[in-house]
């Protein structure tokens, strides 16, 4: 039940993120949408590791049944990568704003064709 709910949530969040990415023009909101998409992926990764009757993989006795540790490691890495990407994008947005005087992505048309 939990797994099903969260699985559906992941897919719905992905849909919302892509919708926002394609429909909204404010660049900061595009970054927010990327964060939603990434959160959906993280939720998915953690869900893969989840076993209803297991314990968390840290602070455990050797005999315990525990959830899979590998996806957690992946999720941690993905969070860090996502945060640095967000920072990079926001820096670029500030710079673009300074040079183009706009924060709307559909006005970035110096290069085209």
């Amino acid at each position, binding site marked *: 039940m939990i797994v099903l709910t969260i699985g559906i949530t992941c897919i719905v969040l*992905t849909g919302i993120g892509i919708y926002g*990415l394609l429909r909204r023009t404010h*660049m900061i909101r*595009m970054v927010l949408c*990327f964060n939603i*998409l*990434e959160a959906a*992926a993280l939720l*998915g*990764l953690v869900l*893969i590791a989840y076993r209803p009757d297991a314990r968390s993989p840290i602070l455990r006795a050797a005999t315990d049944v525990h959830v899979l540790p*590998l*996806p957690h490691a*992946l999720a941690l*890495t*993905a969070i860090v*990568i996502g945060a*640095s*990407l967000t920072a*990079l*994008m926001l820096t*670029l*947005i500030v*710079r*673009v704003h300074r*040079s*183009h005087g706009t924060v709307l*992505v559909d006005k*970035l048309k*110096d*290069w*085209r*064709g």
Partner: protein
Amino acid sequence: MNSLLTELPVLLIVIPLAGVPLLYFTTRSGRGTALPALAVILVVVTLLSFSIRDAMHAPVVTAAGGWQPDLGIGLQFDLLAVAAMLVTSLIVAQAILSHDETSGAQHFRTLLMLLYAGSNGLMLTQDLFNAYVFIEITSIASYALVASRQDKGGFESAFKYVVMGSFAGLLVLWGIAGLYLTTGTLDMQSLAPRFDAAQGAVPALSAAAIIAGLLIKLGQVPFHAWKADSLSGASYTVSALLSGVTTTAFFVLLLRVLSALPSLTLSLAPVLTTIASLSIITGHLMALRQPRYSRLLAYSSVAHIGYGLLAVSSGAVTAIAAGLFHILVHAIMKSSLFFLGRSFLHTGNRSDRLEAIVFPEQYRKLHVTLYVLLAMSMIGIPPVLGFTSKWYAVLETARAGYHTGAVLIALGGAVALVYYLRVGIQLVHPGLPELSSPGPASRRLPVPLAGTALILLLAVFSDRLLAFCVQAVVQLLEAV
């Protein structure tokens, strides 16, 4: 020596990575010497060349940190990696020499080294999640490099590049999660049987997502449109890196993913062929009407990577080898053309619109000769290496049964001639004399001398180079 050999794949990543902080701290206020960076590349190339013989014998597999694959991360040093890393090392070295201290790009070499480390990792890794990490390292370095020109166009291009790149990264991440969910492993060597045994549509969808992500990174139709916009805003040195180093690395990764999942590759073959054919057509036709040098080259890259993908999607060993060979040759010649573009700026002219580009008076004839040789190579006119690689690609693709594809590759050259001729005529007889006023005279020899010389000299050995590629592909396919 033996213990060094088993650690070799790790060293090939760690040495450039160690170079990153080294360069960061030795670079003060945008100035610095190129020597440390060149030294790092020299060490890597030395390691590579000492171990080719062992790699010929059998791939060197290392489990990083002593954890065996399936839980730990496997790194594999095989002929595919050797061939691609030699090419990328050459391009990175040229980029270091080409970098202009006065361009205002701070920490250029630091980012370059990060890109180098990331791409080496991409080409060596056996683990999909590790590949994801290296994809992001390479990409973040290249986003920053695109923005490093610090001007309006650079930021715009970098933002577009980040948006597309992040979406590609997310696709890969989803794919990896899905594959892990259904197969329980991320190690490419043990993936195939579990992939085939897995039930339902999820594994195939996930693998397709990874492939789509890589196709975005490679810029194939319909994922191609960002490419020209991103390359035209970057400086020529960065464009050379993007079209030479990252493209090669992603292509190698694509080859590894495709060879790790033979059943999926078989069912995807028609789609990949269609994508590659569309890329060839779109790339060449779009290049015909581009107003700028860098955009023209970018669209030509779309087409040439299409050649490689077409040959690879046919699935025959020799055709895959021919595709790989063409991609490597393309990396050298396309990056050389971009490096050559740097010389336009030595005339004090900031625009790269085709009607304004002009070579500096100094070494004018040398520049034109280099351009002609490189353009001949891109078009595929003998006796340069680009001809032989195209020849093999056409013949092997046809032999693998892809007749239309072979005709497309062959005809592509005739279209390419039209736009390279357009640029060449402008370079020989610059149209706007008021723009060709001598700027700060550069006494530097053109950087792509090395790449062009290689393209000329290696043409004689193209048989052996292809044989090497065939061996690499055989090794790659046997490993699965």
